Structures are given as C-alpha cells and as structure tokens.
C-alpha cells in the first residue's frame, strides 16, 4: 500500500505538471486516466472503452434515426442493462464482501458508475435534451476520468462536459483547496472508516449468537463505516479534481444529521439520487400522474428497486431496498395525513431505521440476514446482561485492554468528528493554505491511520 500511495502521488504530480504545461491538457487527462486504469487492471480498459464507444455510436444512431428512435433506445438500454446484470451476477458469485480484489471485480472497475452515464446519455439524446457528442475522445474521457472512476460521483455527460472541457487555468488556490479536501478525505478513509471496519465485521462475520442491541449496533457501525469510506473517497476525488481546476458535484450533505428518511436520501449519495430521480422516478411517476400519492408511491418503489439492483444482484440488496421502500412509503403516508414528529425523535428514528436496513446491505448472504434478524428480534435477550461480554468484547474482537482501548478510541474519534463535521467540511473546502489544518490531518493520519489491514473502498465493489 505504501508503494501504491507513493506511485499515486508521483503519478498525480506528473499529471498535474503536464496538464498545466501542455498545449493539449485534455489529451494529458485522457492518457493519465488510461494509465491509472491500466495500473489497476489493464483488461478493465477494454471494457471501459468498449462501453464508451458503444454509447457514443449508439447515441449518434438514435439521433440520426427518424423512425426508430424508441426501438434503438430500448435496444441500447437493454444491452447496457444486460451487461450490468451479467457482471453483477458474476460479482455475486465472487462474494462481494470477501474483501479481496477478484478478477471480475478488477475487470469491472467503475462499471456501475460509467454505465449510468451511458444510460443517461442515450436517454437524453432520445428525448432531445442533448445533441450527441461529435468527438469520441471527449466522450471517452468523460467516462474514464480517473478521480471519479472507481466510486463516482455519478455524473451525466452534459455535466461532465461542463466540468471537464473548459480551458485549464492554473491557480494556486485550486492546488491548496484540493490538497485540503484530499487530506480530509484520506483522514475519513484511513482513520475512521478502516478503524470501524473490523468492528462491524465482528458483528457481521461471527457465527455466534449476539444480543439484539449488539446486532443492531453492528448496523450502525456499518452505516458509519460506509459513510466515512464513501464520503472519504468522494472528498479525495473532488480534491484531486480541484487540483486540475475541475469541479465535480458534491455527493453528501451531512446525511447522518437527517431527521427523516426523505431528508436522508436528499443528503446521501446525492448524485445517484439525482440520476435516479431524473431517469427513473420522474419518467415512471409520469405514467401515474393522475394521482399524486400513487405516482409518488410507484416512483419510490421503482427507484429503490433500481437502486438495490445497481448495488448488487442478490436478495440482501433487494431486502435493503424493500426496507427503504417501506420507510419512504410510511413517511409519504404520514406526510399525506400531516403527521409530524419532533426533530430529535426523527433523527433518532432515521439513524436506527437506516442502520437496520444496512444490516441487509452488509450481510454476505441470507443466512447472515436470518441470524442477525433473529438476534435483533429476540426481545428477551435484546439488552446484554453483561455489557463488557455481550457488547464491548464482541465489537472489540476480544476483551483485552488493547481491544477496549481501540473501541474507546474509535468511539471518541467518531463522536468528535460528527460533532464538528459541519465546521470541518467548511475548512476542507477552504482555498487558504493553513499550516495547522494540513499539519493536524497529516499527523492524525500518520498516527491513527489503519495501514496494516485497511480495506478497499466499499463502493468500488459495486
């Protein structure tokens, strides 16, 4: 990992140098992106290029066809969806949570993210929202752009075009601002997410019975882990992009402070939700537009079904989607009947219900789902009789003093972070060179980062 990090810093520095010095900055970005993918897995380039060329030419075909726009669109979409299904099935067989980079996973690097861009591209051309791109290179670069390749954010072609293809102007503030954001993201990933990973794994991968509270807490631990992991990646991607003078859209807006599920989905994986709203929710709810309630309901069902499928084929993801469908439907009904609850209670319920749904999301298979839900709903053993044995020693993976220290340290770091998250976010977006900020984060990462058994990015597995 050390060598990879050093290679990456070297690669980034060279890319930036050539990007700002070259007469052809987009070419530099293009080759840098291909080099980045080739380093990870050269075969992944073929899949990425194949997909991009397909979408590029199919888009032109849809645009030039006078009579068969709809048929061509459905056919193109079906091909992209079919490919996604095939690879999702293969990934399911590989075991998404094993943590190792399987050949299929390496081959499909970023597929889930760039496939959404291609689908949106075909749809937008079909309805005449955009004209097809003239230059294949531009289109491929928008899909391959390396900072966003592995875990997003999800962007449409028209947004990518706006962000990527303006002439680069070197500004020192961009470099500083990018470095601030990058350090913040690295802290979230290396210090918080990877510290929580073994704790949540202890709940999800153990075969022994747990108290209901411990099992549910595992869901909360995973919610925190996936948040720090994913938002950490996004911070780093946005930071690197900012160094290139490119502004990518934000993907999170303090989701753990949401006071309702609707609120939560407006703050969590924002770019995916915007994509789903634009290309799934609104087009489908349009068909049920006569009844506002039913159109919203069917929109929710379809959107979350697609979201579950996008994350992975498997009943665990479907159950996760069903949970959120239920939550949102209940909220919709409550909204319809003008039922209101206090914000503090809303925040608590949101966190608990999201954590419960994440039990399905994280579970490796239905056996784990069955075990953990049985644990959670065994009400007579819900609370541990002995908190050290039934709770701390489980999530700490042992009862030694060192394990307790690690649990306490993780709890302290997470609580402090969440308490000051708003202020930290603002500082991370600053374009001022702050010695104290960078010094603190570099030191925190160096001292508290998890290097020996760090995990790959969770969303790179989808």
């Amino acid at each position, binding site marked *: *990992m*050390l*060598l990879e990090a050093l290679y990456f810093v070297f690669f980034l520095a060279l890319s930036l140098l050539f990007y700002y010095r070259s007469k052809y900055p987009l070419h530099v970005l293009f080759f840098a992106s291909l080099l980045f993918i080739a380093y990870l897995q050269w075969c992944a380039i073929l899949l990425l290029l194949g997909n991009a060329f397909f979408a590029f030419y199919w888009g032109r075909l849809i645009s030039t066809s006078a009579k068969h726009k709809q048929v061509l669109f459905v056919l193109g979409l079906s091909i992209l969806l079919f490919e996604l299904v095939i690879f999702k099935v293969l990934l399911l067989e590989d075991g998404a949570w094993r943590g190792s980079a399987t050949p299929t996973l390496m081959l499909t690097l970023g597929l889930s993210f760039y496939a959404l861009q291609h689908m949106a591209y075909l749809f937008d051309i079909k309805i005449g929202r955009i004209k097809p791109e003239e230059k294949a290179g531009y289109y491929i670069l928008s899909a391959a752009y390396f900072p966003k390749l592995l875990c997003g954010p999800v962007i449409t072609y028209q947004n990518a075009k706006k962000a990527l293809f303006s002439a680069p102007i070197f500004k*020192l503030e961009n470099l500083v601002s990018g470095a601030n954001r990058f350090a913040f993201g690295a802290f979230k990933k290396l210090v918080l997410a990877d*510290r929580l990973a*073994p704790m949540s794994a202890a709940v999800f991968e153990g075969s*022994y*019975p747990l*108290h209901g509270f411990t099992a549910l807490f595992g869901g909360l631990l995973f919610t925190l882990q996936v948040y720090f992991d994913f938002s950490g990646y996004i911070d780093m991607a946005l930071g690197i992009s900012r160094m290139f003078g490119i502004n990518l859209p934000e993907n999170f807006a303090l989701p753990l402070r949401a006071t309702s599920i609707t609120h939560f989905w407006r703050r969590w994986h924002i770019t995916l939700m915007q994509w789903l709203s634009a290309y799934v929710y609104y087009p489908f709810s349009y068909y049920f537009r006569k009844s506002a309630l039913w159109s919203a309901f069917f929109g929710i069902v379809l959107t979350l079904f697609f979201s579950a499928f996008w994350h992975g084929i498997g009943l665990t993801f479907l159950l996760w989607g069903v949970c959120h469908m239920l939550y949102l439907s209940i909220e919709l009904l409550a909204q319809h009947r003008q039922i209101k609850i206090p914000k503090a209670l809303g925040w608590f319920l949101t966190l608990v219900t999201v954590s419960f749904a994440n039990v399905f999301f994280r579970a490796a298979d239905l056996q784990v789902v069955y075990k953990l839900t049985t644990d959670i709903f065994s009400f007579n*053993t819900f609370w*541990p*009789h*002995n908190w*050290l*044995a*039934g709770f701390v*020693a*489980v999530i700490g993976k*042992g*009862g030694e*003093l*060192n394990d307790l*220290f*690690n649990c306490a*340290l993780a709890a302290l770091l997470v609580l402090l972070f969440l308490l000051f998250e708003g202020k930290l976010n603002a500082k991370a977006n600053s374009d001022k*060179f702050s*010695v104290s900020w*960078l*010094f603190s984060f*570099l*030191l925190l990462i*160096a*001292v*508290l*980062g*998890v*290097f*020996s*058994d760090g995990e790959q990015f969770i969303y790179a597995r989808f």
Partner: protein
Amino acid sequence: MLKKLTILLLLVMAAAFALDYLLYFGLSHNLNLKASYAGQGKVRAEALVLGPCEPLFTIDPDYLEKKLSCPVYNLSLNHSDFADNYLHFYLFLKSNPAPKMLLLYVTPESFDLRFNTFHAYRFAPFLADSIVSATIGELDSNYAPWIRLPLLRYTYFGRMLLFPALQGLKHWNSGKQKPYLSKGYEQHRPAVSPFFDPARKSDSLLFDVQLDEFGNTPEDAADKTFIWNATRETYFVKIMDLARTKGVQVIVYESPGFSGILRTQRNRLAFLQKIDSLCNSKGSAYWCFDHLATCGARANFISPLMMKSAASQNFMDTLSLRINKLK
C-alpha cells in the same frame, strides 16, 4: 506560500521523529511485551519454555521450578510460529544469560502454515537489529517497506502498538519492575472472567480460555492432512542452531492432545517421524506424550491440544521426571 510549505514540512518531520522516539521508548519499556521485558535483561532462567499458546497456557514455571529445582521462565506467545519463537529466543539471549535448557513445543501443526503465524508487530521496538529486520523482510513483505520510515514503522500496526506504547510510558513513569505475567505463564482463569456473560453461554467461547473451546474449533484440528512448510522448517532449525551455539540443551516435546481428535489426523504419524528425524539430525530427541492416559479423557481438555489445569500439572510431573532423568 513556499515559506508556509517549508514550515509545514519541518513541523511534520519534527513531529514524526519525536513521536517515533516516544513510541519506541514506550514499547521498549512495556514490561508486558515479552520481547521488551527480555530486552531489559532481568530474566534469570535455567529452563526456558518456548512455543505458541499451548505451552503459554499449560506450562506453569512456578510448578515446574519445584520439580526441576531450577528457575524457569515461559517465553511462549499466543498464536506464534517458529520465526516468532526464534526472534524471541534470539532477543532473550541477546540481553540475558543463556538458559541451560530450552523446552520447545512442537506438533505437526507447527510445520503447517494454517496454524499460527508470524507477528511482525511484536518486534517493532527492535527494528534496528539486522536479524529482526531481515526476518521481517523475509516473512512480512507488506510491512518490510515501512520499517525504515520514522513513526510509520510503529503506526503501521497502530491498532496493536498504540496502547502498548502508552502502557509502556506508564510502566516507565511508575517505575514498575515486574510484568503482569511475572514468569510469562498465562494462567487459566480459575473463575468466570468479567467478560463472561452467564445469560448467553456462547459468548464465553470467544473470550475465556477456561471454558470449553471444543465447540469452536473441532475443524481446526480434526480430519486434517498436514502440509509441511519449508520456511517453518528453516526457522525451527534456526532455533536449534542458535541454542547449540549458546550451549543450550534443547528438549523438543509435544504435550498430550485429545486422542479423539489426534487419531483423525491423516498424516500425523508421518509428520511425527519427520520431526523426530529432524530433531535427531540436530542432536535432540523428540518427546511425544500422546500415549498418556490423559489423552483419552475428553474432560482433560479445553481444546484439542490444550489441557486443563489439573491435566497440565500431571503432564508437568511426567515431563519433569523425564528431564531429571536426562540430567
């Protein structure tokens, strides 16, 4: 801007070196880390016990001292392989008088990579030693590039080392003289530990070695075809050679295991013969105790290879008798 960047770099470097030394100092002064305690040169033992968790939990130096009439220290470590044992033995000999005899626990599992492992983090305060760094370079290729980086060489294993470093600073500050396990032996907890939850017995399987671990680990030992590993053999030979150069007599032994499991191990006999011939080539004998009556009773064991306290004492009686005959 350039001035600020220079200040930042200088600050980071200064902090890294300062923290590097602080962590080194803390780890070196933590008496509960066996390598650090041995490094202080305070151990006087004529018989040294070495091996993984089985001797750690079953060989009580206080009991054995009475039988052998000489000071005994247990240098065994949980889940340790031969390389781990070799480095501990080497570091022990570096700072303490050589013992007269080494009791080395060896089973067919010891030569199979699926059992026990090398824990590089245990040697973090000794990275300056060329033998330690070379062994880490050979056995932990992930950690090897980090060992020359100040601060990161310790924080790479932060989850394992931060707390012991802090504990070491406390030991130094309080002037502590003896480790928590004064002779290295970790006693089976005679009573239910604070981590035992009586309402859910299964919880206890994870955390309390006093309780029955059979339910947890039958597949770890039963129906196994062992696979001989050359690196394990190399480090076993290194232990034997190191002992010989220091004039230490090596007694290689296998303590009793539960026969119900041992007889399901397919190539156990072939492995025992191979170990025996390896020991003979190094001038030692291999003592196997799988014929003792203790092996037959399931009630004598916590796990397939680990005896309960009473059975351990019986075994130590037998072992010491045989050692005394050798004397």
